[in-house]
């Protein structure tokens, strides 16, 4: 087992290297230079100034030299300083935004599970009932509606017309003067709409998975046996069917772990939430290479690590993988 894990860990190194090489090449392919340097179409920037700025950032070097410099630094876990004009260490920029994105994504995932699984179970148990059809229509509708548009409508309704919820941002104007309890309430207030809306988009997937895998299980012989034994239906569903039916859903959840740090550009822009999606989008638009690479490397590492964890779990569960 230990050897298996070690083998997998070693295998991650060339994989990570390959990812960085491809990412580095691809982000340098599109034309344009770090826009935040302010040297594009700016009458005040003379040629000497431009050359000087480029050499300060090492942009005058050939690409492979730039890559090696970057790699040497990154090997020491230093992601360098951003090319945007704040010049802050990339790791600080990520650290500032990561907790916000992770907590919003986690909360909305929990909400998806809380709502989506019961919908799936109900739809499987009462297949083809009127409510099942209604729920199916509902989850597909939420999947199909452009969420940014729905978000604006909700903001208009709850924010402007009813004046119940704040429209955007995470903290009220007087946040720093609130007590701890008020602060929590304030944050909660601001999070209602973003979390609710981002959960809405994920409902369809989970509830459909739940439904189909539960249907699959309900067809099995041992369920028939359980019914024949005269077990109450609640018990059959909970103890025998659900446990088995949840496995594929958990696999899906495992796969979405790297997505937790991704964030969403559109959502974050509309609700003015300073998250990872916006950071990544802005750094791509301004060709802020160190920040792009930093986010990509962290994302790649988490994905590889998540896969490794999943594989280890499988190996623990299934001796055939471990030995074969």
């Amino acid at each position, binding site marked *: 087992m230990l050897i298996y894990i070690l083998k997998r860990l070693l295998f991650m190194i060339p994989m990570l290297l390959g990812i960085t090489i491809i990412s580095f090449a691809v982000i340098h392919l*599109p034309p344009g230079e770090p826009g935040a340097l*302010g040297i594009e179409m700016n*009458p005040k920037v003379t040629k000497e100034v431009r050359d000087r*700025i480029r050499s300060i950032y090492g942009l005058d070097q050939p690409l492979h030299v730039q890559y090696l410099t970057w790699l040497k630094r990154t090997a020491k876990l230093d992601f360098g300083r951003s090319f945007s004009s704040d010049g802050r260490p990339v790791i600080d920029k990520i650290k500032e935004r990561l907790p916000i994105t992770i907590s919003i994504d986690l909360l909305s995932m929990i909400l998806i599970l809380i709502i989506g699984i019961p919908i799936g179970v109900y739809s499987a148990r009462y297949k083809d009932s009127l409510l099942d059809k209604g729920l199916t229509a509902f989850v597909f509708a939420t999947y199909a509606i452009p969420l940014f548009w729905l978000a604006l409508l909700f903001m208009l309704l709850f924010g402007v017309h009813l004046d119940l919820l704040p429209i955007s941002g995470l903290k009220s104007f007087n946040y720093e003067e609130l007590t701890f309890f008020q602060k929590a309430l*304030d944050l909660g207030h601001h999070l*209602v709409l973003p979390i609710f809306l981002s959960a809405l988009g994920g409902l369809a997937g989970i509830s459909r998975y739940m439904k189909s895998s539960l249907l699959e299980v309900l067809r099995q012989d041992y369920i028939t046996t359980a019914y024949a034994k005269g077990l109450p239906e609640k018990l059959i569903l909970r103890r025998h069917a659900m446990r088995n039916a949840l496995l594929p859903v958990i696999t899906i959840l495992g796969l979405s772990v790297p997505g937790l740090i991704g964030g969403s550009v559109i959502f974050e822009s509309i609700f003015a939430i300073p998250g990872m999606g916006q950071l990544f989008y802005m750094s791509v638009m301004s060709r802020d290479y160190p920040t792009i690479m930093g986010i990509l490397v962290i994302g790649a590492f988490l994905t590889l690590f998540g896969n490794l964890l999943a594989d280890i779990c499988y190996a623990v569960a299934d001796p055939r993988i471990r030995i074969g």
Partner: protein
Amino acid sequence: MLKKIALLLLIILLLACRKEGDSTKYEEKGKPAYGDTLITSSIGEASNLIPILASDSASHDIAGYIYNGLVKYDKDLHIVGDLSESWDFSPDKLSITFHLRKNIRWHDGKPFTARDVLYTYKVIVDPKTPTPYSGDFLMVKKAEMLDDYTFRVTYGEPFAPALLSWAVSILPHHLLEGHDITASPLSRHPIGTGPYRFREWIGGDRLVLEANGDYFEGRPYMGRHVTRVIPDPATMFLELKNNGIDMASLTPLQYVKQTDYPKFNRQFNKFKYLSFSYVYLGYNLKHPFFRDKRVRQAITYAIDKQEIVDGILLGQGVAAEGPYKPDMWAFNPKIEKHPFDPGKARTLLGQAGFMKGPDGRLWKDGKAFEFTILCNQGNEVRIRCAELIQQRLASLGITVKIRVIEWASFVNQYIDRRNYEAVILGWTISQDPDIFDIWHSSKQNPKELNFMGFENREVDDLLVRARRTFDQEERRRCYWKIQDILSEEQPYTFLFIPYATLAVHKRIKGIEPAAAGIGYNFREWFVPEGQQRYRTRNNNAHLHP
């Protein structure tokens, strides 16, 4: 049971923050009073509050409240003293001596002296400083500090825009000298001399400034200035309507239609002023058809500028005839106008040798008159302009194609390589009328701004002459002549100058739009006692001693 509790909690959460109705009367003029907060918003977050290192407008907007330059513009765009009381030129006009104000203190209490000015100059020209603004300062031959309050710069040749370049934010030498400016904590916690001092920056969320009670021109009335980061324009508009922000710029549609209802009018004042920018249709002057100025004039006559302003900007702009806005001193009011006149356009094209072919299109030398207008992606106004132009020119028999390209490749693949026939672009109009970089024939190398290849000996001479004199009358004469030549040559078809349109909450008084915009007298904006909205605990913490 659990469900019920959850539902109850949700309802409480929803109701807890309900605001009471707003019945304050904002019509009353009231007396100036200290206090209250102005909340504004920005699409992008400020990046660096050391202005010479920042290239984004969000940073400069905020830094403008924190720092001062040696000189600044007044509301009519004349240069006046800021940190300097006065200045004089040497007889040969090669050096400028600034006499600095005394008794100015940095926000941390240290006195401001000429040492700070000298440091600022040195750090800008330091090759290790990544600043896009060193161009003007590299022309300085010598900078010296005569005493604590006198500073002199000497140039190799007289250079009129030089005076303006000293509007650059002066940095505190006692906090920066000997440190690496790119790693300085001042980029997140700035210390300046300006009317507002830095209070707090919540990353990605907001940036808070508070009034500097010690400001040398007097304490500003507004107690705080908060800039929220709201990346989405639709959200920004909702926040404005909901009183989440007090000031926001409006699109023409929002300005004309979507804000025209009683509740909004009761709470907000709308302002407009000519923005510092113009949009133009630029021609590649090396193109065989566009080389002929009659063709360019004809296209200008064929375009209905007023139609563009009315149809696309909903009237929120004025037709442009040259590179200046009408309320600047350099603007030539007697410039020859080019009204919409398709008949004249037809005659001019005929003189240039274009004949109508059997297909109804114009032909010359066996080639149909056909060209492509490039636009950059994301700018809807320019794309729609191109469509209107396309339709107008089609009626003359000219086929126009439109291509929309992402900005970076637009600049690198097309503009820099001169690989285009016509473009729709915009320029920012700087407050100083020097337009050397755009029109001088020496500025045609890749990455330089005379990318359409304009060459006119007379304009070259006038541009240089205007740069070499500090006499405003003389400069005015030069720029007027340049506008006459540009009007005749039509290297661009100048399309329009849009209005900047914005809404500000009515409780805020003292706003007077002028040529310089509205921000020039922010220090004098106030909210009368009875109409103040935000009271902060330490409202009076920074009373003047």
